[in-house]
């Protein structure tokens, strides 16, 4: 089976245009990162320099990996059931597009703004820490391996959340239900990154490599699995 890049690009571009003009979606995408930014910033600003020593044994920055785990699920959960409710899904499905192409286009369209938002928030957070935190705190928080992990794991985690959310979206009959279930389904990823950030799960190069390979595989399988679960007939008629 060959994948048409042009059709994937058509869906990707259309989705981005829709996101840009859908205020409720853009507001929803902005709120979660702000919530995840405020509390750590307040904590960091109140920390004394002496507190930087225990910080060196934690990976507080990884706590923010919750952003790519949660933000894309909000838009991806909308992608199929939202179109179905608007009545725009049927015309798309009458075209020669394959379900794999449709879902890939939708996943990439959810991935790109999610990564952009996540990296933007990281940048703002790091800038605030560097400029406003007490001496010692910034150097204890901002460490090369943590930054690298954050940069690399952001797209992997985001894509995994997207496949779960699209899967839920293809099986849901209501946008709000899909979004709530998708947020719930993202919680295991959030819990895992939080446990690593708090050093409950020991972060190491081996852990990182294992998690990276697992996520790569899951994402590959996720695309195929969600494509198989995408049932044109059920989506159009509501019965099967």
């Amino acid at each position, binding site marked *: 089976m060959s994948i048409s890049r042009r059709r994937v690009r058509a869906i990707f571009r259309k989705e981005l*245009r829709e996101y840009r003009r859908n205020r409720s979606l853009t507001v929803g995408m902005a709120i979660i990162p702000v919530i995840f930014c405020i509390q750590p910033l307040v904590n960091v600003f109140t920390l004394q320099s002496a507190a930087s020593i225990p910080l060196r044994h934690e990976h507080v920055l990884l706590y923010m990996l919750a952003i790519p785990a949660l933000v894309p699920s909000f838009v991806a959960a909308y992608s199929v059931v939202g179109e179905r409710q608007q009545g725009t899904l049927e015309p798309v499905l009458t075209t*020669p597009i394959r379900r794999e192409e449709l879902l890939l286009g939708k996943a990439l369209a959810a991935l790109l703004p999610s990564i952009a938002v996540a990296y933007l928030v990281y940048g703002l957070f790091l800038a605030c820490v560097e400029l406003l935190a007490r001496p010692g705190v910034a150097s204890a928080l901002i460490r090369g391996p943590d930054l690298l992990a954050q940069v690399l794991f952001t797209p992997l985690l985001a894509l995994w959340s997207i496949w779960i959310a699209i899967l839920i979206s293809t099986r849901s009959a209501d946008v709000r239900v899909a979004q709530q279930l998708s947020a719930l389904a993202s919680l295991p990823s959030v819990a895992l990154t939080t446990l690593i950030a708090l050093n409950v799960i020991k972060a190491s190069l081996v852990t990182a490599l294992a998690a990276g390979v697992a996520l790569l595989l899951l994402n590959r399988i996720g695309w195929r699995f969600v494509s198989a679960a995408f049932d044109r007939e059920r989506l159009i008629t509501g019965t099967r």
Partner: protein
Amino acid sequence: MSSNDRAPEPELTGLRRQSGGGAGRAARAGTAAIEASHLAKDFGGRAAVADVSFSVARGEVFGFLGPNGAGKTTTVRTLGTLIAPTSGSATVAGIPLTPENGVEIRRRISIMPESPGLYMRLSVTENLECFADLYEVPDPGGRIARALRAVNLADRANDACGTLSKGLRQRAALARALLSDPEVLFLDEPTSGLDPVAARDVHELITALSQSGVTIFLTTHRLEEAERLCDRVAILNTTLRTIGRPDELRDQLFARTLMVRTLVPIPAPGRVFGGLPAVDSWHQDGPAAYVLAVSDPAVAAPAATRALVAAGADVLAISESHHSLEDVYLELVNQDEEASRR
């Protein structure tokens, strides 16, 4: 669409010529555009469509009529590869209807659903750009411009679809359906919600498309629309009730009759109408009105006129009764309702 800037025929014929079609289209030229054989679709044990068989010739405008819930949309969705038939077989654009051929069939057809299904936040052009890429049409810009001109929507190309009236949205959906230069175009209630002028423009567009070789499969509730546009019609009510040219259906269902009206009642009508050539029977339908069941009106009418004049009757009118497609439709649907009550 105003008449001074409308030029659908050359535009659409141009679309068809440009996409060519090549050897594949030529090879399929001899086959019917659509052939359905004993097609059936059940939803949870309830039959939506049962044992439907018909054939649509290339370039034909085929009307598909039936009451709400008769299975029209289900049939269109089945032929459009959106849903799988429970049983039966079909070919669409010369290609067997199988799950493996879904993409290939959808490349050659276009479906305009009853609800336009446009992206309301996007402009008309942005909507069409998306679909031009989904169909991978060559020269998408040119094709979009031609499709918009064909439905006379070029001046609203940059407006968001959400700001358009229902009629304009319907036109945008029609432009979208034309983008891929389809061999078979399925139109589900294309004039629903349109004012009479806009509906007339859509009718002209359908005629022009048909003349350029596009096969049109038209589902509609507007019987006068079907009668005016369609070469043949089928009436569906879960099963196929009848199929044929509108005039054929009238002749099949209704006896041909002559209506005779005189100034005063004829004293002995039996002596006037009895034994006339091509008159099978007669009955009185009012004090000075008579209905003659005839086998050939061209023979019966002059004979009846001569007999009336010979009898000294003052003839007001002799006319052949006309049954519309609506009469045919209502007769068949009423028969179904009565059968279901029994």
